[in-house]
């Protein structure tokens, strides 16, 4: 009997959880629940323990006596006695609903996202740059180090030679390989399509962008990253914030910074261009800038400057430029109108407005729905 049975049971449990996750994905798409839960390859998702319904006491059941795990509910209390390392800790974890954390591969989460929002897979643009990915041990050579000797091939050659030479004796089936029988494994280079992408999250942090607006940006950035990560083997993320001036920041600052003051969007676009020119050649990179703002700009002149930058410099270099306008109490929302008017026909530009969290899925679909 194998202990791996428990792994089958866990796999089944995880299937059930995935089913629920899929059903509830909309909720996750509009909440901050998953943020900060992403590791290198997986997201750890808290799910309430799936409980079988039972006739059991409800909320007023405690009555305030020395309640504790002595009067546990529902499930069998373990056939056996178990003890937590820290009695207090276990007791604290006992009542009500247990939360189980289930690791879901990023790949899988992205697949659910793709299905939920009906996102097309991204076709990498332009010529596929080729790269050598180390190669595979798929070749055979007559020369090589002993450590790479291909035993099966070597033996087969020796056997063939022995039989051909008439020295084979079925009653004494000895096969002695000679140096000329030996074969060695050989590495064959394999060419794989280049698949690198860079995402720029550019956020307006001027005084009018409040906490809720930033949360919305945060949720969107999380899901955009999750999706793009599933589409590219290598994804880099650059965070840029701006008010009247722009700078590159780390992830933490991006989500926590609160600047105040005016807004000069062109400063961000200039910095963006500078970054692309210095580090991300469009021949080598799939480039995805996303800009989030409440749509208030310094002046109409600066907006013209932005449009010129987009048209002449940025759009030709990127796969797609996403502009997400988050509704705020102070923003005029003019910037999106201006962009749509000037560049609305350019399908490298996507604009979307988000009124509140509920609008995140639609904005996501707008941003990622073109498969670029």
């Amino acid at each position: 009997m194998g202990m791996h049975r428990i792994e089958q049971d866990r796999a089944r449990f995880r299937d059930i959880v995935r089913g629920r996750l899929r059903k509830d994905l909309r909720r996750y798409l509009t909440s901050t629940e998953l943020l900060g839960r992403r590791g290198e390859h997986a997201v750890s998702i808290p799910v309430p323990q799936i409980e079988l319904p039972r006739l059991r006491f409800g909320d007023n059941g405690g009555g305030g006596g020395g309640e504790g795990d002595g009067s546990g509910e529902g499930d069998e209390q373990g056939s056996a006695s178990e003890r937590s390392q820290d009695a207090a800790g276990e007791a604290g974890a006992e009542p009500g609903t247990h939360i189980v954390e289930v690791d879901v591969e990023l790949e899988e989460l992205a697949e659910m996202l793709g299905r939920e929002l009906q996102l097309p897979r991204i076709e990498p643009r332009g010529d596929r740059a080729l790269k050598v990915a180390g190669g595979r041990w798929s070749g055979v050579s007559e020369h090589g180090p002993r450590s790479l000797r291909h035993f099966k091939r070597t033996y087969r050659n020796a056997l063939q030679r022995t039989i051909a030479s008439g020295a084979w004796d079925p009653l004494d089936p000895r096969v002695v390989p000679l140096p000329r029988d030996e074969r060695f494994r050989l590495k064959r280079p394999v060419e794989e399509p280049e698949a690198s992408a860079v995402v720029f999250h550019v956020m307006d942090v001027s005084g009018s962008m409040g906490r809720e607006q930033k949360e919305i940006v945060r949720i969107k950035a999380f899901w955009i990253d999750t999706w793009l990560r599933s589409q590219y083997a290598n994804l880099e993320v650059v965070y840029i914030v701006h008010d009247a001036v722009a700078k590159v920041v780390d992830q933490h600052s991006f989500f926590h910074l609160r600047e105040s003051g005016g807004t000069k969007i062109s400063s961000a676009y200039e910095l963006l261009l500078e970054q692309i020119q210095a580090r991300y050649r469009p021949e080598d990179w799939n480039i995805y800038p996303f800009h989030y703002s409440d749509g208030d700009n310094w002046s109409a002149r600066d907006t013209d400057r932005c449009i010129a930058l987009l048209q002449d410099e940025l759009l030709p270099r990127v796969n797609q430029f996403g502009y997400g306008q988050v509704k705020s109490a102070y923003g005029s929302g003019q910037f999106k109108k201006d962009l749509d008017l000037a560049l609305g026909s350019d399908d490298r530009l996507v604009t979307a407005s988000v009124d509140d969290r509920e609008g995140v899925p639609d904005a996501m679909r707008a941003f990622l729905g073109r498969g670029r």
Partner: protein
Amino acid sequence: MSHWQEPEALPQRLEGQRKRIEQLARARGLDFFETRFVMLDATDVNAVAAYGGFPVRHPSWRFGMEWERLEKGREWGLSKIYELVVNNDPAWAYLVRGNSEMEQKLVMAHVYGHVDFFKHNIWFQPTDRSMVDTMASHGALVRALVDEHGHDAIENFMDVALSLDNLVDPWLPMRERLRTPQHSAVRAGAPALDLETVRRRSMVVEEHLPTFDVLGYLVDRAPLLAWQRELLRMVRAEAHYFMPQRLTKIMNEGWASYWHSKLLTGGILNASEIIDFADCHSGATAAPAGRLNPYKLGIELYRHAERRGLDIFRLRRAHHDVTLLDELVDEEFAHSVELFAPRKGPDGKLISWRETKELLLRELSNGGLPRIELVEDNHLQRGELLLRHHHDGRDLDSAAAQRTLAGLASVWGRGVHLDTELKGTPLRHSAAPEALRAAS
């Protein structure tokens, strides 16, 4: 992940300690089944624990979920299973590889306490002592049914069956045992019943209404397919097996803790281990204010009984948690145990130890489960079931009750009703049968 094999012998050094502990335990009056210790990695111990102690148990996602929870608890350092012991003859116990020698000694002594308790406590007498084999055959049954009817059908039915598994009469196996003439023969010194007979006896179903043995009634009367009936019978047998552990959690843990403490400080520990032992022991018996730790409450009860000059061996034989607490918790005890310290209730009035005791007894009664009685099987002349919740001040979780009834109705094939109270007013839950998805 390692594979389950015939248990290896314990490392020689530990085996030596085990013998010393066994000898001392027997010398001090404990009497237990042969106990087989198996040493496993922590993750495998968690797996066994997830299966309720039976690595051979039937497959279910619930065990996978429990493993996930235990493993996360271990990885995050929140909780850790020290020991696991299975009521069976021979008993099986699991040691976690990597624990210190002191911890292993503590666990072994603790385990012998449990096995003595399993063997002698009266409520354990009707339990299946070859449960390891029974569970294995249950597992084989479920696997065969999965092959025959498909995974989904079996899983769906099992989920419904398991949601009814607390609708058993905890006292039924004992009543049946007392009713049979063989029992008096045992007392007169005749050879003990063979385990098969005991097991079959515990499966006797009560014929007459009203009954608390709802599950038994369904096994007997519900219009089920043969395999569904078989699974329901299996669920009921497992529920009866686990029930005495529910009824005696405090006594059982108290007894085991009392003895690990007694044995270890009675010659098993080296001087160098005393501090670590004290640390480990006090960790296990720590009770945060207002919370019940069965280890702590149990050990205090036996020590109190000892001070009062009572025979603790007799107590561990004759009682379950409710009767033991009722017998032993007096003013002196209440003053020495924090759980019973006077405290303010929600209305600002002081709650005395007597009231705390009352509350505790009520909470522990019926194994901490609501008392649900099946009173009619032809309600309204329509062949519908009527159940009654014996309300004792604690309301049911309404949403869960409604879902449970829906499952019950699908098993019964006709409507079912449950009379209870909610916030002081009578309430009836009703559910109509939905075709069992499994019935195809």
